[in-house]
């Protein structure tokens, strides 16, 4: 018989919580929520590219973000922590879940689960890889053909003029959409919020948010490739 004594200190409690699968899901949900909010903010920032004086607007926006190095790094570290926690926790859960069914079925037919929910383990790693590429591409410029410090407009347009890069962005953003469709709804469920009255509403909210974020971001490389954006940069 298993015993489950009540943990004594706050730290122990948190650790016990993290050791349980539900605690881990909470961590995934909370960090996911932070990252979700970040993707919204990031997309809104990106969409400034459609403003008439986009180059200047984006440059100002970049300056604003860099106004305080401390703050910038605080946010970066916070985001990084969330990201790492999100990924590590999921990796742990993934191993746990594989161990829970070592022998797979000869035949298994999904009944209710959505495509998005079943492909989290695919969209997740792709996004991880994407984030690394994205940072080296548009933040540090290491993988960018003609990176100019503090000129996001230039970097975006010239970067996206490379079809392979754009294609990867489009695929990654589709994956993000898929990931968020399940992830955002799942976040509420994991944190214990599910009520018959709001169940459909939450699902729709998740799907809509995912669609807006991914389409909003995808529109940029597409418009660059089509020549709609970046006419002023030769």
């Amino acid at each position, binding site marked *: *018989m*298993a015993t*489950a*004594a*009540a*943990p*004594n200190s706050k730290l122990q*409690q*948190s650790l*016990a*919580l993290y*050791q*349980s*699968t*539900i*605690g*881990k*899901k*909470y961590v995934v949900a909370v960090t996911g929520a932070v990252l979700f909010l970040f993707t919204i903010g990031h997309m809104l920032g990106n969409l400034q590219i459609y403003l008439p004086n986009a180059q200047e607007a984006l440059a100002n926006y970049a300056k604003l973000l860099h106004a305080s190095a401390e703050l910038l790094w605080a946010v970066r570290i916070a985001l990084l922590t969330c990201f790492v926690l999100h990924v590590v926790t999921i990796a742990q*859960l993934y191993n*746990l*879940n594989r*161990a*829970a*069914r*070592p*022998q*797979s*079925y*000869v*035949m*298994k*037919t*999904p*009944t*209710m*689960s959505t495509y998005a*929910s*079943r492909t*989290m383990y695919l969209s997740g790693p792709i996004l991880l890889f994407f984030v690394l590429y994205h940072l080296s591409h548009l933040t540090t410029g290491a993988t960018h053909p003609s990176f100019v410090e503090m000129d996001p407009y230039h970097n975006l347009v010239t970067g996206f003029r490379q079809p392979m890069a754009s294609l990867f962005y489009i695929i990654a953003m589709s994956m993000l959409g898929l990931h968020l469709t*399940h992830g955002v*709804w*799942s976040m*509420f*469920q*994991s*944190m*214990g*919020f*599910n*009520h*018959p009255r709001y*169940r459909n509403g939450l699902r729709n909210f998740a799907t809509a948010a995912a669609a807006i974020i991914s389409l909003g971001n995808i529109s940029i490389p597409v418009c660059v490739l089509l020549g709609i954006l970046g006419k002023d940069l030769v």
Partner: protein
Amino acid sequence: MKLTLNVWRQSGPNTPGKMVKYDLPNVNEDMSFLEMLDVLNETLIAKSEEPVTFEHDCREGICGSCGFMINGKAHGGFPKTTVCQLHMRHYKDGDEIFIEPWRATAFPIVKDLMVNRSAFDRIIQAGGFISVPTGSAVDGNAIPIPKSNADRAMDAAQCIGCGACVASCTNASASLFTSAKIAHLNLLPQGQPEKLDRALKMVTVMNEEKFGSCTNLQECEATCPKGISIENIAIMNRHFVEASFMQRPAMSEGGAG
């Protein structure tokens, strides 16, 4: 009608198993799925072969004994139906059917389609009860319970412990089963004194029994023969986290322990 069955045969927990093909020429559409297997077994016995072992008892969809995967779906995947209540009219002449046991580390195979689900009993032992020794109860009407609470508790209490939720879950998670019991008892006033303790202990044992984690796929809800809602899992998550932070250490003279 004529059917081809592919049935998982495994003689014991530690022996390797395999799919074996059987042709069944005379299946009547009014038979239940288990009656169809009865017919198969009678023909196997006549040929001096070992019949297929599968668990069953009530054959009314209430005891929770029966259950295996049919064509990759727990209980065959028909709404609110256990295999014992599934009738052959859902299949047609010439169909090829795949039959496999529940698969999960926590449910080791006993023989053929029969698995060991005692992990469920151990989850209940951890806290799936209200501690009220015989004779210590107050009058049944002493605690009024709003009808809607009683109904919600009943919705959750309908679980038959069949294990289809675990079997159909990609992660072999027992969240639906565990949460149904936590919700049933925690939604009732009688269950309040042990509410947090129950959530904490049952979830802990659920994890110790090597079930996977819930990734909110909803496969469980879709194949649960009693239509248990994943809303219960949300309730469990809430109570568990509350318990993890709010639970006070047990008192030396016994307390909640």
